């Protein structure tokens, strides 16, 4: 990371995700929170919880006492509701607070958001940040990942998040609308598929969507299984073990046809002279990149069209925020002055 250009300037990168939101700052702080925001439902709840607003796991834990919002469901601020816009506002404030700015420090904030949110909620997000920082930028998540990795030319980023899978082709400039695609068959979709498959196969067991999401985060895989996957779920109040290997595979592979089709379609629309370079440089980011065997699986499936190289990044949780931080830090002073 390049050194700060001003001593009293704190550079902050934020990855505002559907499932998790992450912050990295030039003072070295790195934090994340699950993207839940909750307000106490009434004065009793407020007195019991002792807070005006709760975030992340704490909000989830006390969800029965809260008006809970997961504001970026499906990759956009849900239905443009005031509550979800307010939740984004609170969440950004919380993340900036986690960055640990000193009172005398000025802040420059870059925020990465799902590509769809960038299209439809850009101003709402910018306004939410503007209360905290005078210098700010809003970019798409896959772009901030690409910037952080230095993959700015002839590369494709696939950001598999909870609400959307965002695709972005980089060709040495800021990606245009036609360089980007979004699919709604992402992490939440896998959860729903897994929940459905498990409920159908084991109707006697009590599964919840949150339980299923935890199973996925621990055991997700595509392709041939390396081991049998066994989980425990309550049956009539007693925890019972189930082998869910096949269901896990089916659920995790369910978005793959759409992802492969989009990859091929985007590459086919790229300049023919550079298609080969893009095929060799496909980077998979986001929580979905942690699905075991994903890079091998995608390479095998696309082989029949044209061989492609897929690389899953090492630190998917912080890649977006680190990229946004890099962007804020690199932004020339003459540009920053006007932002």
């Amino acid at each position, binding site marked *: 990371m390049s050194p700060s250009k001003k001593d009293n300037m704190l550079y902050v990168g934020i990855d505002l995700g559907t499932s998790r939101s992450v912050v990295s700052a030039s003072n070295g702080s790195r934090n994340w929170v699950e993207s839940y925001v909750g307000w106490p439902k009434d004065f009793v709840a407020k007195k019991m919880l002792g807070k005006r607003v709760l975030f992340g796991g704490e909000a989830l834990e006390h969800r029965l006492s809260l008006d809970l919002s997961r504001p970026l469901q*499906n*990759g*956009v*601020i*849900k*239905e*443009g509701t*005031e*509550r979800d*816009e*307010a939740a*984004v*506002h609170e969440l950004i404030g919380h993340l900036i607070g986690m960055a640990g700015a000193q009172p005398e420090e000025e802040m420059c904030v870059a925020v990465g958001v799902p590509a*769809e949110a960038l*299209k*439809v*909620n*850009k*101003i*709402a997000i*910018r*306004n*939410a940040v*503007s*209360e905290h920082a005078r210098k*700010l*930028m*809003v*970019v798409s998540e896959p772009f901030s990942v690409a*910037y952080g*990795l*230095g*993959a*700015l*030319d002839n*590369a494709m980023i696939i950001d598999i998040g909870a609400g959307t899978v965002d695709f972005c082709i980089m060709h*040495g*400039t*800021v990606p245009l*609308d036609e360089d980007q*695609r*979004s*699919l*709604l*068959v992402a992490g939440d979709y896998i959860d729903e598929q897994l929940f459905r498959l498990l409920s159908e196969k084991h109707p006697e067991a009590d599964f919840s969507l949150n339980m299923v999401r935890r199973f996925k985060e621990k055991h997700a895989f595509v392709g041939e299984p390396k081991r049998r996957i066994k989980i425990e779920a309550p049956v009539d109040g007693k925890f019972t073990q189930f082998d869910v290997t096949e269901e896990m595979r089916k659920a995790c592979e369910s978005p793959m046809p*759409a992802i492969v*089709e989009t990859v091929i*379609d985007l590459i086919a629309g790229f300049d023919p002279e550079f298609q080969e370079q893009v095929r060799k440089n496909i980077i998979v980011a986001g929580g979905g990149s942690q699905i075991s065997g994903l890079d091998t699986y995608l390479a095998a499936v696309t082989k029949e069209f044209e061989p492609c190289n897929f690389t899953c990044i090492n630190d998917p949780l912080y890649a977006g925020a680190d990229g946004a931080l890099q*962007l804020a830090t*690199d*932004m*020339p002073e003459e*540009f920053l002055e*006007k*932002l």
Partner: protein
Amino acid sequence: MKADSTTKRVVLRGVYEDNLGIPRSCRGKGRARSCPAADDRPKRFGKVGKIGIIGLFAVVALLGFNFRIVYLDSVGPVAMQMSEQPPPPTPVASPVVQARPADGATEAMDLLVGSGFGPIIETAAETGREYDAMLSHLGTPMADLFDLKVQTIVIDPGHGGSDPGATGHQGLQEKDVALDIARRLRDKLAAVGTYRVLLTREDDRKVYLKERVAFAKENHADLFISIHINSVPAEAGPVNYVETFYFGPHTDQRSLDLAEKENRDSDYVMGDFREIIARIGDTLKTEESAQLAASIHSRLYSNLKRRSGDLMDAGAKTGPFVVLLGVEVPSVLIEVSCISNKAEETRLSTPHYRDSIAGFLETGIVAYLKRRTIRTKIDGDNRENVAQQER
């Protein structure tokens, strides 16, 4: 994997320019929720905003701005213009239903200031935005404001149940999108006036076209709005367009093909057609339907075009749709989007986008109702003038 400094500089400049383009009007200490996204229809103004608007109108009135509503003719749209400097001829989005030139104006009224609406210059491209602003800012019940006679609006979400309609590449189905938009439109219309707004189907079930028509009649519908999503064969490529139909002969082969597709499972028998075909000469209904189609279509297209650069305008035009023929009141069938276009299908998957479409349809319907009322008022005033002269 490191980018060279020139590429980096180009990209940074791009980010800078991208972010400079975002309006900054809401900067400062205000809460984010008081500053809606630019492409969201503003929900409402706070007290200060309302006072500001009222004050603005008062200032406009005091300054004596002489804005007028010019009534063009019995089927032409109403254009609002300044008396001294008429605006250029109104551009129209529809290739079929076209505005008459301002030269044909027969009557002018100083209604704008009196009605409290201020200087709204109406063009096909701008009216959607102006109406958005007007509806949101005034918060006035349209029915009270315009003394509307329309009481019952029937919204008809296409397909349903075992008939999914068109299906997109990602599996999104026309029947689900149409139902969702219809529900949102119902809620919006119910919120702006005292209309009774009904849906021909409230859930995912099959309803024959004949049943839809019967439902409209039984409930004494004053307007009938049928909502569909278009689809084109793969060989046509990734096209995306909107089009709006009112009953009449087809204007091109594609309209005929589409009508055949939408007319499937009508449950009508040949005998029924003798009666309903006789109604084709119902010119009043046709004229009103044409007005309604043009009003909805121009607003839908001009607003959606801002979101989808590739959107094409297939116009407001006639088509032989059975469901439109059977209904006796002004009725239109709107293909609000094109589900076979992948990018459009993704957009349609988001509640926000479907809500926007419902908002644009609402804007078009309310604009039609307003014109209708103004026409009635002017007709009434003309009759009064003639009576006075005769006296």
